[in-house]
């Protein structure tokens, strides 16, 4: 939605923002508690959660919460994240994106290919983390799985968690690097210039929706 007075374009509703930030808080808590049990050097992080035993108890419940908050994000945004032909082209020009050679980058819609990869990457990884997490959740589901299945789940869980944190770092960095992005998630809108520069096709679509 275009707000002519300020020249801004609406990007996220208040509900979407709340959903995103709840998801973000839980994801960060999960990463901290998970990493505390991942490597001895990070065990001190269990103090943030009331010690090792509390960390072990809370981590899987936070996982349940993440599945809920991320489901919200998924159903809000999945339809904007289907892969289009220009996305493959955009990926070919990823070097130009990183080097800020905007003139070589194809126009993109609401989300660029990188954002779509984040969306689907997070979707798949969170599914994998949830499934392997259930197998590792000894206190609740220990009796339903064999030791060998639990071993495999532990390897998968750790690998997927590292990939998730890696994706998260890229996501956060992109938001910091591309100035004017964060306000989309804090105020709900972006400037027209931001939309023109980074999501020109989306801006045109939004403009076209406006009454003449």
């Amino acid at each position, binding site marked *: 939605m*275009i707000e*002519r007075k300020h*020249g801004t374009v609406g990007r996220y509703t208040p509900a979407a923002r709340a959903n995103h930030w709840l998801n973000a808080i839980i994801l960060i808590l999960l990463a901290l508690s998970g990493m505390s*049990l*991942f*490597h*001895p*050097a*990070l*065990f001190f992080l*269990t103090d943030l959660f009331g*010690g*090792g*035993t509390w*960390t*072990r108890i809370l981590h899987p419940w936070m996982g349940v919460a993440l599945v809920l908050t991320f489901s919200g994000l998924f159903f809000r945004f999945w339809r904007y994240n289907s892969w289009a032909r220009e996305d493959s082209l955009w990926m070919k020009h990823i070097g130009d994106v*990183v*080097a*800020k050679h905007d*003139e070589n980058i194809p126009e993109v819609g609401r989300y660029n290919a990188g954002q779509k990869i984040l969306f689907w990457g997070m979707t798949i990884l969170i599914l994998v983390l949830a499934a392997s997490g259930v197998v*590792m959740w*000894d*206190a609740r589901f*220990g009796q339903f799985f064999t*030791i*060998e299945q*639990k*071993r*495999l789940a*532990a*390897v998968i869980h*750790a690998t997927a968690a*590292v990939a998730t*944190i*890696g994706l998260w*770092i*890229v996501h956060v*960095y992109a938001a*910091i*690097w*591309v*100035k*004017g992005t964060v306000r989309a998630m804090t105020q709900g809108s972006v*400037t*027209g*210039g*931001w*939309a*023109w*520069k980074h999501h020109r096709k989306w*801006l*045109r679509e939004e*403009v*076209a929706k*406006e009454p*003449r």
Partner: protein
Amino acid sequence: MSTMQSLDVTRRSATTRPSPSVRETEEVAKLIDISKCIGCKACQAACYEWNDLRDEIGVHVGVYDNPHDLTENSWTLMRFTEVEEEEGKLEWLIRKDGCMHCADPGCLKACPAPGAIVQYSNGIVDFISENCIGCGYCVKGCPFNIPRISKKDQKAYKCTLCSDRVSVGLEPACAKACPTQAISFGTKSDMVEFAQTRIADLNERGYDKAGLYDPPGVGGTHVMYVLQHADRPELYAGLPKDPKISPLVEAWKGAAKPLALVGLGLTALFGFLHYVTGGPNEVEETDEEQAKKTIDERGDGRGGR
């Protein structure tokens, strides 16, 4: 569970630096001679007695094993197997199951809680329950399926090899109670030597495959068996032939972890350097003008680049 001095700890779970190691004690071992075992369960009773534990009264399921499995209260268990190696020659193999006290303990490697599992310089692997967080990783690490998680407190339990008794010069309670001396206890080298005399005796009696079970895949164990059929340990209620820490556990707990952390650190560092060398990606004034034009025209917006 133990009261041994920290000076005697050689390995400690979730600890990357060496433990105090100036003092070295002699390695001990328990030798269980299965050919001498009569299945009286005195060792089980002695274990309950010394550790002041009782298991729940169970139900009979048609086998002699009682309880049916190791539990958080039953740290040792006689497992009975009937085999007919030769036609008409029934053998009743009775193996006293429990922690093997591996030289390379999978439980200790898998444990994420610092100091929840320790290995003393005498070879005993002990769970320090107050540090246990109840995650069950030790169960995944163990190649012998020994640790059990209590439903009551969600902590892991297993045989301590009576570390409290051994530290004051006593033998484990099960060895003390065994009426046929099927369980011996002493230094590991003495026990290996003693086992050889037993094996020679068994060889003489026709068990030409008799041998010592001290599996090298886990660096040897501090609980060893004399087996009549050492070539087929699986006969003894599924004793693994070549136990090793699962490659999955090694992958999960091995070098991949610190490498993954370094990788994540480098990703963040790369981002930081990208920012401070190339600067942020900022919207220019011309972008705002173009946007304004597009919005105002409400047209096709193709007013130029």
